[in-house]
Each structure stands twice: as C-alpha cells, then as structure tokens.
C-alpha cells in the first residue's frame, strides 16, 4: 500500500468512506492498534452517567473536534434519558414492586431499552465517522460505564519500519 491517507481531511475524501460495514472489517484486518484514548466520566452533576466532552490531544490529527463532541454529547443525552427520574420511572418502580419484580421477566427496563439505542448509535458512529478515520469507539458498558475507550489504529505497512503483525484488537467487537 503506497501512501495511505493520514490526516482526517484526507480520509474523508476516500472513495470507500461511505461503505460503512465493509470498512470496519478492513480496519481490523489491515490496521494495527497503535494507542487507546480513554474519555473519563464527568462528575460535576453528581453520580449520573456523563462523560467529559474535553477533546483529547491524541485525537487532534485524527478527527474533527466538533464530530467528537457531538458524539459524546449525544451519548450523554442518551444516558440522561435512561436515568431520568420522572413519571415513567415511578410507574415502572411501583408496578415492579407490586409484582415482586417478576414483571421484569416479561418486559424490558427502560434503561435496557436505552442501552440498546446507545449500542446501535455507537455502531452507526463507528461505521460512518470513526472507522474511516482509523478509530473505533468501545461501548462504555463494556468498560463498566467508567470510560469511553477509543482505539486508534495505524495502517499496517505505512509506518515504514517493521511493525510486524501485532494485530491484537482487544477492544470491542
């Protein structure tokens, strides 16, 4: 592979940028894991699940700041929706208590429904935005809701030195 595009803007001009799922597979087979960046939790509003929107410097050359911030803000919104204490959570709680929590064998909790939405959103973001830039987001639930893990991949063979075949992708699916 002769000069693979390295900067974020170059990658957006790639012809295969819109082929989403195919690109994720390519990422795992042809790129090697270079680094991992961890976005920590933001506790300023208490113990609700919220992540810091501060842009990490390691991603400076890989992705635009606005795209990253939009992703994190969207995730924060989803988590806020899941943890909202309001009418629906009261009804769910009372119904569950009256049925001795057997009702959860039949219906899904609201939090689980939102977690599925989050999982779909992260997959979509990975396919459309992050994989074309050589990045991969891991769902925070796989890391105990402590961090958003972003794996940074480098194209194999483009660095020049014998990087070997150290392709171990221990992040996500």
């Amino acid at each position, binding site marked *: 592979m002769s000069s693979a595009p390295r900067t974020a803007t170059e990658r957006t001009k790639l012809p295969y940028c819109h082929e989403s799922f195919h690109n994720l597979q390519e990422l795992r087979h042809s790129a090697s894991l270079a680094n991992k960046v961890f976005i920590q939790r933001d506790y300023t509003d208490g113990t609700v699940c919220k992540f810091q929107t501060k842009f990490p410097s390691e991603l400076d050359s890989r992705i635009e700041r606005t795209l990253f911030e939009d992703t994190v803000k969207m995730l924060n919104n989803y988590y806020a929706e899941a943890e909202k*204490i309001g009418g629906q959570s009261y009804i769910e709680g009372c119904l569950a208590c009256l049925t001795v929590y057997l009702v959860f064998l039949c219906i899904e909790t609201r939090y689980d429904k939102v977690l599925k939405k989050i999982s779909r959103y992260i997959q979509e973001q990975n396919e459309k935005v992050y994989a074309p830039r050589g990045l991969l987001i891991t769902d925070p639930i796989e890391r105990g809701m402590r961090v958003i893990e972003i794996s940074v991949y480098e194209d194999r063979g483009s660095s020049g030195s014998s990087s070997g075949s150290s392709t171990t992708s221990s992040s996500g699916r």
Partner: protein
Amino acid sequence: MSAVMITRKVTRKWEKLPGKNTFCCDGRVMMGRQKGVFYLTLFLIVGTCSLFFAFECPYLAVHLSPAIPVFAVLLFVFVMAMLLRTSFSDPGVLPRALPEEANFIEMEIEAANGNVMAGQRPPPRIKNVQINNQIVKLKYCYTCKIFRPPRASHCSICDNCVDRFDHHCPWVGNCVGKRNYRYFYLFTLSLSLLTIYIFAFNIVHVVLRSVDSGFVNTIKETPGTVLEVLVCFFTLWSVVGLTGFHTYLISLNQTTNEDIKGSWSGKNRVQNPYSHKSIIKNCCEVLCSPTYPSVLDRRGVMLEDLSSPTPSDASAASTHQSSNPVSQTTKSSAPLIPNEHTPDEAKPGIGSGTQKSTSSPKEEKPPSPTSPNAVAPAVIKESSH
C-alpha cells in the same frame, strides 16, 4: 486412540471474573463469599413462618378471619422474594480496569505527580472533583486499578469495588450497593411487618385460646408458639431498628458507609452533595429511580482463540489477566508501583526497571498535612470541560 472427542465447553465470563464472589446457575446468581449466615436467615424466616402456618393459622382462620393467613402468606412471599433478590443480584460491582486503562491512569498520575525525589514517599493518589459545587475526593483503588467513582467503595470481603456501596450484609450474604439497595430496604421493611404481624397474632392466639382452655393447655397444644414468640421478640428490635435507620439514611440520601465514616457530618466537612435537600425527592431518587443494569455481563460467552495450541492461556477478547501481552502494543512505559494492596501475582512482573525508589510497601498512606518535608499530595484537578 483413533478419534479424539473434543467437547467444547462454553466458557462464560463469570468464570473468569476476579473477586471473591460465588456464582450459581451458570452465572445467573451472584453472591458473596460467606453464605453461612444467609442460610441462617433463610432458616429462621421459613422456620418461624412454617410454625405460624402450622399452629396458629388454623385456629385464627376459623375463630377470627381467613384473611389472616392469606395476608401472612402474601407478606411471607414478598419477604422471601426481596431477600432472594437482594442476595442473588449484582450489587453494582465495578469491573477492574483492563491493562490499557490501568496504564493510562498510571501515566496520568505520574504526570500530575511530577518529580518525586528518591527516598520520598510518592504522594497519595487522590483526584478532586467538583460535584454540585462541593469538592469531593476520589480515591484510587490499588486492587481494581481505578479511581473509584463518587460513593463507590471497595468491599474487602467480596474483593470488588461496588458502586454506591452501602455495606456488606452477612445476613443476606452479599454486598448492598446501588443495584440492590432498594430490595434490601424493602426486605427489612417487609420483614419488620411480618415479624410484628406474627408476634401480634401469636399473642392474640394465646389470649383467645387461654380463655377457652387455659394458658398451660394452650402451650401444650401449640408448642411452636413459644419458639415463635422468642424469635420474633429478638428479631423485632434489630430489624425494626435497622429499618428505621435506613429510612433515616434514605431521607438524607446517604449510605451506611458515609454515615459510619462521617463523610458529611461535622462542621469542617463538606455537606452531602448528593442530597436534594428534600426528603421526598431523596426517597424518590433512592427508591424510584430506574433499575440500573449490571455492567458485569456474567453470562456473556468468552471468545476463545481457536488457533492457539494451548487453550488455557488463550487471549480471550474481553478477559482481564494480570499479564496481558496486548499492553505491549500500546505506548505505555509507566510501571505499576507495588504496595501491600497489589495482588501477589502481579508483584514480580512490575517494578522492574522502575526508577522510583520502592522503599516501603506502606506508601499509600497519605502524609499528614502538617509535615513540611513530605511532598504535597498529588491532586489531579479535574477541569470542568
């Protein structure tokens, strides 16, 4: 030996979880390590209720009302359901950091520490965060290799960090944390009601029957009554007291752990930043908040490396091992500083090539604020955004 049958047994993630929990039913049930007192609790509740149904209920159903045993049955079912739910569910265990995350945190700590002179203790690992305009200190857990989220604490019996840790209850055989606190509270509340109910109707039964046949004959006919009254009498004080205590904690949105440590009491201490300053709102948050999911994924299937000849050390994708070769690919050079909390199997592998002096194993104790020559505690200040 022509054909070798390889039976592929699916390995689920609970089998490889660190910590000292007990798992049953292929990972569906999760309990603490010591279960003896839990069996005693079960025995006392089931035993006393059986005696009640056997001795008192027939008489009371006939002479007073059939609703009495019916209500007792409902209450008993509720108590057992809450007990089993508290004991068998994940209290909110925080999984340990994978090596990359642990290294990332180590590098952050070292960046904040700056240069530590040889011979000096490294400063304690504390992060200050601002929650609702109060400064809260987050401590580093050497076992789990994470900065504990606010209100989380490490349970030494289960060897896990638990979110919103309340206490480890031997009676239910499990930790009480974010995910099962409301079941624990409902268990104590319903058990108080059940105990008062059985105690009251025992007295009523003895009185009614004594009117007919005399006190001594009553005891002879229903010997179980004496046992029930004894158990209920002693249980009453402790369980009702516990329920009252937890009601008080819920109204203030505090945990037992915080109450014992006096985190929010005292003049110079921070006020509780999690309290909504309204009893109703606090109760709603603790009892009516959405059911949090377990982040442990106990029943997930572990991916095994099919091409490796040694299946025992296969690099499963999501497993946490202390000597994970993946960490070599990441840019991390900070060795982990061993101390008395570091698990023994990790100690030989780390600390080699470290330039800091690993003088005393007791370096995690924070230096007293008045000692002038100690390095000031490294405080990683969290910028808000």
